[in-house]
């Protein structure tokens, strides 16, 4: 996989989320991603960035344009130094939430992207990386 461009955006407050979403849209439009795939990517990003703010106390996001076998895609990383997730497989279950949400955030985000990777260590924080390929199903 080749990284074509990379930028960092810190997320500390809710208003940062709008800026972050707009930037994803710009990047996705630039590589010619369809509107449906853009919407899926942005919705997944919205879920993950909210988790980061709510449970991780904010953090850093990376927006990258990547390419594999000449197919471009957008890779997003969400890195926080929050309390981490004790049981990842439980957190990935539909309907499970420690807050008062619907519990669709993590499993829903996973369904909306092509690749989903989560690493978490209690006490150290959580890193989630997702990829949506330009025309991936």
């Amino acid at each position: 996989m080749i990284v074509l461009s990379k930028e960092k955006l810190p997320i500390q407050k809710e208003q940062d989320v709008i800026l972050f979403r707009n930037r994803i849209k710009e990047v996705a439009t630039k590589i010619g991603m369809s509107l449906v795939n853009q919407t899926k990517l942005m919705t997944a990003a919205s879920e993950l960035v909210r988790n980061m703010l709510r449970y991780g106390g904010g953090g850093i996001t990376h927006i990258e344009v990547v390419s594999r076998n000449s197919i471009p895609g957008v890779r997003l990383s969400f890195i926080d130094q929050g309390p981490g997730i004790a049981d990842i497989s439980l957190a990935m279950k539909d309907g499970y939430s420690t807050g008062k949400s619907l519990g669709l955030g993590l499993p829903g985000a996973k369904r909306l992207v092509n690749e989903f990777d989560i690493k978490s260590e209690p006490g150290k924080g959580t890193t989630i990386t997702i990829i949506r390929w330009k025309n991936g199903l």
Partner: protein
Amino acid sequence: MDRIPILKMGPFLLVTIQVDLYDRLALTLENDLINMVSKTEAKGVLIDISAVSIVDSFMGRILGNIASMSKIMDAATVVVGMQPAVAITLVELGLTLSGVHTALDVEQGMELLRTKIGQQDADEEGLYDSFI
């Protein structure tokens, strides 16, 4: 603080969301709307989301909350103008928006609200008839 304007149109309240919502703004809207339903004795709420590019689980929950709160206060809620890409994404996300009435655009949404009120009036008339 930012606020989404709520317009009164006869017995209905009209909300057009023209900006991307962050969570606090959505919560403020939920609050304002329910207070307005009570203050104006509105019979219906129409929410136009045609300018909204994404609806995530939080926004979906807010829409559901507005619908259930209005319902207990005797007002119907119709969400209109959802973009096709948003609908596709919502279903894949696993959100069904149960309890929320939907229509394609503002015009059809208004029609739906009018029908709902009409039905109510007819029911009430029927009730009076049975008393007589």
